[in-house]
C-alpha cells in the first residue's frame, strides 16, 4: 500500500505548497466578503441579512478558483500519464487528488467561513453550524469542482471554464448549506437541510471519481 500513501503524500504537499496553499483561498474568501458592504451605500448595518448569502457565495467561488491547477500541472509536465500507469485505478487517483485538495483548501476555507459570516453580521450562535455546513458543502464543492478541473484539462482559460461549467452544479449544496445556516441563525430546525446537504456530498463522492477519470482519459487520448 506504500504506493497509495506515497501518492497521498505527494498530492497533499503539492496542494499545500502550490501557490501558498490555504492562504490564497482564504485570502480570496476575505476579499470577496469585504466587497458587498463596501459596495452598499446604506452602510454596513443594512447587510446583516445578507451576511450568510455573501459568505456562501465567497465560499463557492473560493472553492472553485483554487482548482484550476489540480490536473493541469500534471498534464503539462507529463506526470498524468505516469499516474495512470500506477497500481491504483485512475478513479482512485482522482479521488485522492480531490481529498488532498480539500484538506489544503476546503478545510481552511470552512474554518474561515464562520469568522467571515459573523464579521458580516451573522449571529455568533450560528458559528458552529456555519463551520459544519461549510465543511460538508465545501467537500461537495471541491468534489464537483474536481470534476470541472478534469473537464477543463488542456482547455484555454481553464479557471473560467471550470466556473462556467461547475457553478450551476453547485446550486444544490449551496441551497441546502445556506438553508441549514439560516435555520441555525434563526433558531429553526436545520435538520432536513443538513441531511440533504450530506446526501449531495455523498452523491458527489460517488460521481466525481467515475466522471473525473472519464474526463482525464478524454484529455489523455
Amino acid at each position: 500500500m506504500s504506493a497509495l500513501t506515497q501518492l497521498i503524500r505527494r498530492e497533499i504537499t503539492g496542494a499545500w505548497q502550490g501557490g501558498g496553499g490555504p492562504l490564497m483561498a482564504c485570502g480570496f474568501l476575505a476579499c470577496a466578503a469585504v466587497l458587498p458592504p463596501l459596495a452598499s451605500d446604506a452602510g454596513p448595518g443594512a447587510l446583516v441579512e445578507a451576511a450568510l448569502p455573501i459568505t456562501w457565495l465567497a465560499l463557492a467561488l473560493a472553492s472553485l478558483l483554487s482548482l484550476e491547477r489540480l490536473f493541469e500541472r500534471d498534464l503539462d509536465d507529463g506526470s498524468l500519464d505516469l499516474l495512470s500507469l500506477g497500481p491504483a485505478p485512475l478513479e482512485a487517483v482522482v479521488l485522492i487528488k480531490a481529498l488532498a485538495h480539500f484538506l489544503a483548501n476546503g478545510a481552511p476555507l470552512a474554518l474561515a467561513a464562520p469568522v467571515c459570516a459573523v464579521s458580516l453580521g451573522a449571529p455568533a450562535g450560528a458559528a458552529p453550524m456555519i463551520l459544519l455546513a461549510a465543511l460538508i458543502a465545501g467537500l461537495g464543492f471541491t468534489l464537483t469542482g474536481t470534476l470541472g478541473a478534469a473537464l477543463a484539462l488542456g482547455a484555454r482559460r481553464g479557471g473560467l471554464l471550470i466556473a462556467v461549467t461547475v457553478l450551476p452544479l453547485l446550486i444544490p449544496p449551496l441551497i441546502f448549506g445556506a438553508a441549514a445556516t439560516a435555520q441555525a441563525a434563526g433558531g429553526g430546525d436545520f435538520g432536513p437541510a443538513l441531511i440533504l446537504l450530506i446526501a449531495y456530498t455523498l452523491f458527489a463522492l460517488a460521481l466525481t471519481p467515475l466522471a473525473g477519470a472519464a474526463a482525464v482519459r478524454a484529455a489523455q487520448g
Partner: protein
Amino acid sequence: MFGLANPQRFMAFTRPLVPLLWAAAGVLLALGAWFSFTAPEDYQQGDTVRIMFVHVPAATLGLGAYAALGVSSFFALVFRHALADAAARAAALPGAAFTLLALITGSLWGKPMWGTWWVWDARLTSVFILFLFYLGYMALRAAIDDEARAARSAAVLGLVGLINLPIVRFSVDWWNTLHQRASLIRADGPSIDGAFLPALLTMMAAYGALFLALWITGIRTEVDRRRVVAARARAAAGA
C-alpha cells in the same frame, strides 16, 4: 436504434425524413398560431394567456433538447458511436435557443401579471439554471481546440448535467417551498382551461417537430462536415 449508429445508414434513412419534418413544423406552427389567436381570452389573464402558447412549448423543448443531448452523450461515452457526438453537438444550440425563448416569454408574461420582469418561481428559476447548463456545455466545447478531445470531454459534461438536472430541480423546488410563495405560473398545470388545449397542444407539436427538424438537419450537416474536413486533411497529409 443501434442500426442508425452507422453514419451511412443514418444519412440514407433520414434523407426523406428531413423535408417532411420541416413541412410538418411549418404547418403545425401556422395551425398553432391560428388556434392561439382564435382561443377565447382567459377570464383572469385576458390576452396575456396567448404568451403561454409560446412559453410552455419553449420550456418543454428546452428540457427535451437537453435530454437528447444527455442521452447522446451517454451513447458517445459508453458505446463510442460515431454519430452520438454529432447528435449531442447538434442538440445544444437549438436547446439553448428554446430555453432562452422560454425565459424571454416567461418574463414578458410575468410583467403584466405580477408587475416584475423576473419572478423567482421554481419553474422559471429551473429554466434559467438549465440555460446555464447549456452555456457551460457550449463553453466547454468552444474552449478545447482539439475537436476529438472536446467531444469526449463534452460527452462527460453532458451526461453529468443530465444526472444533475433532477437534483437541481429538486433543490430549487425545495428552496421555493421554504419561502412558501405559491408557484406563480400555474397556467400549464392541470388547471388549464379546456378551451386552450388545442392551441397549446398544436404549438407543442409544432415546437417538437421544429426541434427534430433542426436536430436531424444538424446531425446530417455534422456528418457531411466531418467527411469533408477529414478528406481535406488526408489530402493535406499526402501533399
